[in-house]
């Protein structure tokens, strides 16, 4: 088990490297425009462009840029760390690289450090800092929504599987169809319009993100709408999947065995039926959550939650390579990590699967 996890983690690192390399190659092969031009003003001169290129490191070849990226990723931002984000205390210089000792540095923003992700072209802030600030927002969004969609989706799926071909089933599947076909941005705008424009009974339902640490209640109320909107699509998917799985499972021979044992129907469904039909959902859930780390773009934009998805789009539009790679690293890591978690959970849930 331990060895398995270590091997999978090494694999994760490899995946992250491959994905970042791809990002570099794509950026290099299909540049969305020279980002240096933008930072040389509206009447750029070749000298200014060259200067910006030099500062952004774009004057170097792709392999050099990538090597530089890797060095930073593994050794930290080091001396590349501009004063803007240099940590305040406990700096030790080791062969030109500043090693950050986080102990005792409670105050102050330490945007640079390990793993180093470089400076955003766009805002000249440390990408690492940006990600540190944005990740909790996105995670708050995803996990709240995930809880909602799991509870709602699975419950609806179970009800509709058990009350098959009744009005309940039809209502539930109608909901699922609506959830799947309603575009998220439309839902988001409608939700906002209803709850902040037409029935503005609470400002706290509106857009924006409130830090949990500052105001837990505000954090919660501000996230209710985005959670619901984001969860709706997934709840619909999960309801459909749970229904299908449960209907299949309830036709399995071992369910018949459970009934033949004389188990009450409730126990047959909840102990024997659900266990088997929810196991595949675990896999989907893990991957869905991981992909949302960089993919909740529309929800984040509509509800003005400045999270990772938002950052991904913003950096792609402005050709902000370090920011893009930063998000890619996080998403790749999240996907690989969630896969590992899913595999472990799956092996726990389904004894037929073993770590191999």
């Amino acid at each position, binding site marked *: 088990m331990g060895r398995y996890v270590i091997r999978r983690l090494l694999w994760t690192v490899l995946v992250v490297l491959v994905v970042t390399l791809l990002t570099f190659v794509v950026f290099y092969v299909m540049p969305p425009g020279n980002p240096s031009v933008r930072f040389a003003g509206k009447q750029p001169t070749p000298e200014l462009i060259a200067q910006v290129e030099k*500062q952004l490191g774009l004057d170097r070849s792709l392999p050099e840029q990538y090597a530089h990226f890797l060095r930073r990723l593994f050794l930290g931002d080091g001396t590349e760390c501009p004063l803007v984000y240099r940590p305040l205390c406990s700096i030790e210089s080791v062969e030109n690289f500043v090693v950050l000792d986080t102990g005792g540095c409670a105050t102050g923003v330490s945007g640079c450090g390990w793993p180093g992700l470089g400076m955003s072209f*766009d805002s000249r802030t440390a990408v690492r800092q940006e990600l540190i600030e944005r990740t909790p927002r996105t995670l708050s969004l995803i996990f709240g929504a995930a809880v909602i969609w799991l509870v709602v989706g699975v419950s609806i799926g179970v009800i509709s599987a058990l009350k098959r071909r009744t009005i309940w089933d039809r209502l539930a599947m109608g909901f699922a169809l609506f959830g799947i076909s309603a575009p998220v941005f439309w839902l988001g705008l409608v939700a906002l319009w209803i709850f902040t424009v037409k029935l503005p009974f609470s400002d706290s339902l509106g857009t924006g993100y409130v830090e949990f640490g500052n105001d837990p209640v505000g954090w919660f109320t501000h996230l209710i709408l985005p959670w619901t909107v984001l969860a709706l699509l997934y709840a619909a998917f999960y309801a459909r999947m749970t229904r299908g799985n449960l209907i299949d499972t309830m036709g399995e021979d071992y369910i018949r065995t459970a009934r033949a044992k004389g188990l009450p129907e409730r126990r047959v469904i909840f102990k024997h039926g659900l266990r088997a039909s929810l196991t595949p959902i675990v896999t989907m859930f893990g991957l869905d959550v991981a992909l949302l780390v960089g993919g909740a773009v529309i929800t984040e934009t509509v509800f003005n939650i400045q999270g990772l998805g938002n950052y991904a789009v913003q950096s792609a539009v402005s050709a902000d390579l370090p920011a893009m790679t930063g998000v890619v690293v996080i998403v790749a890591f999240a996907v690989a990590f969630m896969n590992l978690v899913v595999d472990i959970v799956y092996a726990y849930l389904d004894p037929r699967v073993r770590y191999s």
Partner: protein
Amino acid sequence: MLALSLLLALGAAGCGGDDGGDEAGTEASEGVDEGAEPGGTFRTQTDAFEWTGNFDPTGEYLATFLGLYQNLLGRTLMGYNHVPDAEGNELIPDLAEAEPEISEDGLTYTFTLREGVMWGPPLDRAVTAQDVEYAFRRIATPALVAQYGFYYLGVIKGLQEYSDAGGLTEDPEGETPIEGITVQDERTIQFDLEAPTGDFLYRIAMPAAGPIPEEVAKCFLTAGEYGRFVISSGPYMIEGSDQLDITSCDTMQAISGFNPNQRLILERNPNYDPETDTPEARENFFDRFEMTLNTNAQDIFDRVRQGQLELAYASEPSEVVREYSTNADLEDRYQINSGDRTWYITMNLTQPPFDDIHVRKAANWIMDKEGLRRAWGGEPKGLIANHIVPDTMFNNNLEDYAPYATEGDAGNLEEAQNEMRQSKYDTDQDGMCDAPQCKGVLHVTRTTDVWANMAPIIEESFAKIGIELNTRQFEDSYTIIQTVKRQVPVSSTPGWGKDYADASTFMVLFDSRSILPEGNVNYSLVGLTPETAQELGATGTVEGITSVDDAIDSCNELMDEERLDCWQELDQQLMEEIVPWVPYLQGNADFVISDAVSKYVFDQASGDPAWAHLAIDQDLQQ
């Protein structure tokens, strides 16, 4: 007249302008003024921060920054009163106690700084002439990427040489004096120019030319870094500035009130003395200013409507324009002023069929400009443009100049076909382009709503003279048309605004010396020579293109009325003899404000709200 008004205005500083009456298609130019009271927090949101130089005054070229800095954060030697219309484009002494002494030959400018202008916390000392000189050293430091450094390099004596030597370095020992900048004493600074420069004072009013304190800025010798440490010399400062520990470079940490991606929070600068300023220039009503990011533009307008925000700093969706311009109750919440900007369709002089001037003229004749304005949201969005430089910048002298005027601005097929008949691409002389070059002509435009709405109108207009456009929308359409090698024949992407109220800031778009392989703004390639063409990879008809470089140079040397006349003539020459554009809209600057804004004033110089004059009624804030 405007160039004249420069000096006139200097004499009349503080007394208001003499000719601010021209409406120039704007309404409510006086704004709202219902007994403005001081205090409160002015809240605005934007749907995107797009700093180009990360807020460092030396490099930052974003118009938003210009307005914020000049109104609230920094004093420049020369400044503006932050009022609408031509009066708002007039210069006043700001950090300087009076207008400069200018030598007879126009080469030497001597400024005296006001007494009592202090740096905000944590500096707490007087602003000196050395601080101004230091700003110019920064402009001349290549690593700091001064994006409009061309306004000074090669203009002020010795500055280019200083730049060539590398500018500021971490080792101050090697510093050499700049020949053309002399600090006579703490409060007196003298500039010596290479040649007479008619708009030099406008240039001096730009943020980069304002004072910058060396003790802080010396720690930041890479582009954009100082933006997180900007020390105020104006009425407001970035929140948290007083927390900045300037004992050494290593102790400094970014000021908390500004995060380039998320927010700009300003509070009153305790060291600002209103005595050093005039209420005409700055009234400074509110106590605090917040500009934050809201990725949902619709939500910004909803919040303004509900009074949760005072002003929407985002472009209005057309529904909002329609609602505010048709609902009488909302009329005074929708503020429209001339934005001193021109929106136009650019035609590439090297690419067929636009390498034929008759085709370009026909395009001007046929274009349904009224249709395009409708796509923008209609009349509130601006006046129909008939030439290059916005009328406000010519004191409306060319208001009636319309070489391709058509009825209802909807295009004139007869005139267009007359032109087309003279073109080599109309082989059968029927007024319709019939050459293969007119089929599938690449038309680059943006993906956003306005441009998507315009595309079919443009296509339809061109089709009337036989030109079939192949419209392609790009997220980064500017990058595409700014790359010469892409050889884009026609694009409706661009628009241009002034840096300051001199036509030179428009004419640079036709200067052949500014044609660059990438980041090129002379999209039409006016003045392209076969040699440059080869160098840059431009193909097509590269011979026989008229250059206006000499005309630009000669106008630039002039001052006052002559200068204005010179530019007006050049504008007309461009429109009739070269025809690089189809200008269609003199864009307005329109803003939606909430009930709580008790005083609204537009700042003509920056094209933004005059932040320094805005006031709020806290009782109406939600």
